């Protein structure tokens, strides 16, 4: 019996040592293999993020380009043509200086052309630098925007805020205004809501813009997928502007009838 125990101990030591060897071999191989895979996966994620950032950058450059083209087209097609007509009118007026009736008609036409041009210039200016936003601040700017949309009778927008006179960095105000405008445009275009409620409040050191609407909702994940797949600039513009002001934008569907968009901006 004692011999058997002795042999067993020696056998146990041999088996245990070999078992440990196999285990350690497995551990080391596993670690070497797994580390490669994890590194490859990490590289993939970094590449994907870089691609996404590049897409957003390209989108923001294209948006800036399109705005320049829009301004150039407005200047050329409206103001350029109007100025050409005014020049012709001046020549006609010079020729008809003794014909009071014709002269008066030319002056009246020219006045109308100048008024149209001034409206076009104002419209371009308002688009670039909304005056209400510039002079009266973000809250009044958004109120004005809501009024403009209400005038179109497509959607009914109501606006509420507890802080009428909030002030923060002008650059953030402008970008946030454009972001809210872009989100509203997209919501009205794709969600087709009949009612939108906008609320603005300050939450600690952040500004919170909340939009509730009864149109077709979408989630943040769906937005990100769409922005990668689609060639349209609207979504990319929203994501780019959000990043520019270090904001967090969240799209949720609360239920069948209400969807929500929140924009959280540090100020």
């Amino acid at each position, binding site marked *: 019996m004692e011999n058997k125990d002795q042999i067993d101990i020696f056998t146990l030591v041999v088996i245990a040592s070999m078992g440990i060897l196999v285990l*350690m071999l497995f*551990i080391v191989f596993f670690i*070497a293999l797994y580390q490669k895979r994890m590194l490859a996966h990490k590289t993939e994620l970094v590449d994907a993020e870089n691609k996404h950032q590049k897409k957003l950058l390209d989108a923001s450059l294209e948006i800036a380009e399109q705005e320049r083209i829009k301004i150039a087209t407005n200047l050329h097609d409206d103001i350029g043509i109007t100025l050409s007509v005014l020049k012709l009118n001046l020549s006609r007026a010079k020729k008809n200086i003794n014909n009071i009736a014709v002269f008066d008609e030319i002056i009246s036409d020219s006045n109308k052309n100048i008024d149209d041009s001034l409206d076009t210039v104002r419209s371009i200016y308002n688009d670039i630098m909304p005056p209400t936003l510039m002079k009266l601040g973000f809250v009044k700017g958004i109120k004005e925007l809501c009024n403009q949309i209400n005038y179109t009778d497509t959607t009914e927008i109501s606006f509420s805020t507890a802080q009428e006179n909030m002030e923060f960095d002008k650059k953030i105000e402008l970008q946030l205004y454009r972001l809210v405008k872009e989100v509203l445009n997209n919501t009205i275009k794709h969600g087709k809501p009949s009612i939108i409620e906008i609320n603005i409040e300050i939450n600690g050191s952040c500004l919170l813009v909340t939009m509730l609407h009864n149109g077709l909702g979408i989630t943040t994940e769906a937005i990100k997928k769409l922005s990668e797949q689609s060639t349209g600039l609207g979504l990319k513009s929203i994501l780019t502007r959000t990043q520019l002001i270090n904001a967090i934008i969240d799209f949720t569907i609360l239920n069948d009838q209400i969807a929500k968009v929140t924009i959280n901006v540090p100020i």
Partner: protein
Amino acid sequence: MDNNRLLVSLSQCLSLFPFLGALINIKKIKECLLPVFVLLFVNVAVEIIATIYIEFDKNTNEILHVFTVIEFSLLSLFFAFFFKKYFNPIVIYISIPLFFIVAYVDYKINGLNSADNFSVSVESFILVIYTLFFFYYVLKNLIFDNLLAQPVFWISTAVLFYFSGNFVLFVFANYMMRVDLDKYLLLWSIIHTFFNVLYNIFLGIGIWKTRIR
């Protein structure tokens, strides 16, 4: 018995391989590899002294008691110097003087002339934990792009294989010696030699990788 001596001699000679590699790459031995280089030198010195002792039929256990403490200290410093780049390895620093206490207890209980199996078992256990933590930390934080090109990986692998493979042998050594000394010596010459060979090969690869870096 001659075959046992042959195997043991073979493994002793193999300890020259990483030592020579360290001498060739001596300029590249920096930071956490410094304690390993010192250990390689101590290894070779101990092997030579042990061989001389055996030739004169003297008990080698007294050298091994001292060697165990030096080996543990140097390998702990290797891990401590590696980890100090990322966090404060105060646990490793504290374990060194604590191990001195363990070795002293072993000496008091068993004396210098018997094998230091208790302290070697404790040493094996702690060093295996250090190596497993090293692998876990490196994997979790993805510190290296190419793990197989890092000297620290091969040195840790060497430590892991040697001390985990010999752990059971160390734990039951005293019992097996009392029961059947010849069988124990046979087992020692096979198992310990095998893992010692692996240990020296991996250490050598680790030292060689410092040249490629």
